[in-house]
């Protein structure tokens, strides 16, 4: 096995890792960077639990190799709260019961962050369409939609 030594920039911090070229970004975040907040639900790019942001865009970290992320800015759920203060999305998910088991939640939070960044006034239909890229088995989605809507109004204030 050949190992690559490389640097990953995650949540503003630099991480040096020695990894196989075949290692996914998700496995690298979890196993080599200690960032286990990114979860794996299917490992074939459908459920979206592993969604992180790569240069601001949501990606399935189970479908990317870490070596493809050289030079990019990666954001994970661990970077959302600042100094212990929850991000408005996290506050809204808590207030509106947008999570139950919490396993899909990091993926939904990162997805929602990217889509509110791209379009803070996103319409209801577009919001649902965008959120349909991730799966949740507990909440029935209703409270996730409510939470993201509520965070978007809080963030645009």
């Amino acid at each position, binding site marked *: 096995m050949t190992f690559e030594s490389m640097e990953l920039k995650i949540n503003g911090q630099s991480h040096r890792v020695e990894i196989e070229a075949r290692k996914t970004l998700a496995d690298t975040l979890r196993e080599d960077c200690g960032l*286990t907040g990114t979860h794996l639900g299917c490992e074939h790019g459908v459920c979206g639990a592993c969604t992180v942001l790569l240069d601001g865009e949501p990606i399935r970290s189970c479908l990317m190799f870490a070596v493809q992320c050289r030079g990019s800015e990666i954001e994970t759920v661990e970077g*959302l709260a600042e100094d212990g203060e*929850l991000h408005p999305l996290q506050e809204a998910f808590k207030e509106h*019961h947008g*999570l*139950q088991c919490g396993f*899909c939640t990091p993926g939904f939070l990162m997805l929602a962050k990217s889509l509110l960044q791209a379009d803070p006034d996103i319409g209801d239909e577009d919001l*649902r369409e965008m959120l349909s890229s991730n799966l949740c088995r507990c909440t029935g*989605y209703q*409270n996730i939609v409510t939470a993201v809507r509520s965070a978007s109004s809080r963030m645009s204030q």
Partner: protein
Amino acid sequence: MNWVGRSLPRVEDRALLQGQGRYVADIADQTRSCKHLAFVRSPVAAGRIVSISYPEDVVVFTADNLPTVKPIRAALDRPDFVPIETPVLASSVVRHSGEPIALVVGDTRAEAEDLAEQVVVEIDATDPVIRIADALDPGAVSVHSELPMPMGANVVLDAHFSTEGLDAAMLAADEVFELKFRSHRQSALPIEARGAVAVHDISNGRTTLTASTQMPHVLRTAVSDVLGFPESELRVVVPEVGGAFGQKMCVPREYVAVVAVARHLKTPVAWIEDRLENLLASWHSRDHEYEIRGAFSRDGRLLAIDADLICNVGAYSNYPVTFGVEPLMAFAELPGPYKLREYRVRSRAVTTNLCPIAPYRGVSRPAITMALERLMDVAAGKLGIGALEIRRINLPSEFPHRMPTGISIDPGSYVESLDVVQQEFDLQAFRVRQKSALTEGRFLGVGVSVFGERTGYGTPAFAARAMEITPGYETAHLEMNPSGDVTARIGASPHGQGLATTLSQILADELGLTPDRIQVVHGDTDRTPYGWGTFASRSLVLAGGAVKQAAALLRDQISRIAAELLEARDEDIVIEAGLAKVAGTNSGVPLDDLARVAHHQAHRLPDGVEPGLSAVSTYDPSGTFSNACHLAVVEVDTITGHVDLQKFLVVEDAGQLVNPQIVEGQIHGGVVQGIANALYEELVHDDQGNLLASSLMDYLPPTVMEVPEIEIHHLATINDSSITGAKGIGEGGTIGAPAAILNAISDALIPLGVSVNEMPATPSRLRALIREAEAEKVMAI
């Protein structure tokens, strides 16, 4: 101040929202020198293992060298039941595709998978038994030819029941409707698949099994029994669990293997299931065929039901509830809440070369409720009675209501739920809209379902199933520490239900504290009393009842100490807002101070009061029924077979709501799994038993796009069948939704003469029914 009844944000959420929740895969990643297992699984549904070969330098375990003592075995003590044992690894025969045959140990999962490819298993494939009809064929080969099969080659349960007047009622009835129903195989599909990490401590000979499970204590018993060591040598810890819905209730072969390997190699070992394994070889459910005759009077009274129910339970049993869980629940609960007197049922389990079944949210009830509620609609249509009206005629208003099988239904709001549906949904206006849509070739339909959800039952109800391992009670340990904070230790094992929040609300009211002073400890067999875990919509009722009872004992202790300190009588002490005071006076002692005295100044305690503040109580009730009425509105595209679910309304009665937002979350999630069952999810197998829906590209859980806004209205019937007044609500959404949706689709398709009695009602199935109906029309011309 009342904490019960308020939608408090959950104490669980802050960590989960920051990615700080620790799930089993996180534990594996954070355990030093942890080896990973990969299983070599059968590529065929049936066959004989001829040979297993692998390079010498690969660490492989097979049935021959894995140190186990016994197979996994759970049984029912009844003559019409054939117990089936499950080996941890298949030894000479494979009985379903995906069955574990060998396991390989690697430094990482990737390495273990690479090594697993070097294991060569030669199998002499045989013809598998896949469908129910094949299993019952008189010439069928037995899936378990090594066992005596007195009831038929593949019949492993054949339960019969009849009331005395069944035949007479059938003969005397004005109308008898005969219907066939089919529910196809489904997966509970938690987004986190299963997983386990075992760490053996050579210094004390104990193993810690960290596992994604609903039943930590039961898992401890099972693993210790199978591996042949005392339970004291095993600690089961449950970290965060990423959803379960029944799939993490029964004991997996893989978890037993993880412990066996960790103890044998004296090294930490993990198995983290991937999605393919999860769909292929985790538990399946609800593969049923029913033939039901329903006898009615002309005025719409349901007089009798005669049912023949068959469940395809797959290749093996499950521990602790056995494969009997589906056929016997269908057997006992098919008549639902209706007032019929006469009931005959035959319920069979057949074993096949498919993955074994286990409970999944609702167990049999989504399927039997679909059948019963379709029967009610078919009868209503034929008798010219409204769908709500025929239910009103047959639902009980006097309680306790006794089902023909003897199960007692406590007070509920069955008829009232129909009233609310009538108030909230303008049926007349819908019929006008439906008629005008039809003139444009659009097919709209509305459907309802009414049901009771049996929840919160203890040992007496489970004992009726004659289970060798009889679940039921829950125990709570309460302790107030010297700082005046309370710890509640429970045997229940929540995994997303927010039980730490709701129990702290109950305890806050009972002990006059704020909920943040209460810590709930669960999911650790070293730190909690023996209990049955979280399943069957039971935990708020059972663990809630146990903590409430224990709190009363703790209040007594507090009152006796306060009476001594305040020079008052025990019975005059009231506990509220952090104080124990003499009723009607300003004289009181803060609980924080009292707790110090109880621990640190034991010499000041009254005679007969022991130092410390703690209480234990066990709650073991006979059970309660929540109830609900669901209403669905659909539009069916008859060209494509697509169903557009436009509205979903739930009127439910869960008694006292401890945290309404959490209750509604359970309903939302449950309904969406019911929508999935009704329209989308199916584990399709080919005739050779190969799973065709082996990824989430083929097995289709709904996304937000498939789900309408779910409108909820609450009713509250509170009675003493649950001492907190709360009734379980975890499964109701899933139980009622398929019936309402299939009724709505059938309502939409009345003009075409199509009746839908099969789920999921996929586009191809609906198209086939529509084509069939069109062909019949042509024939008739």
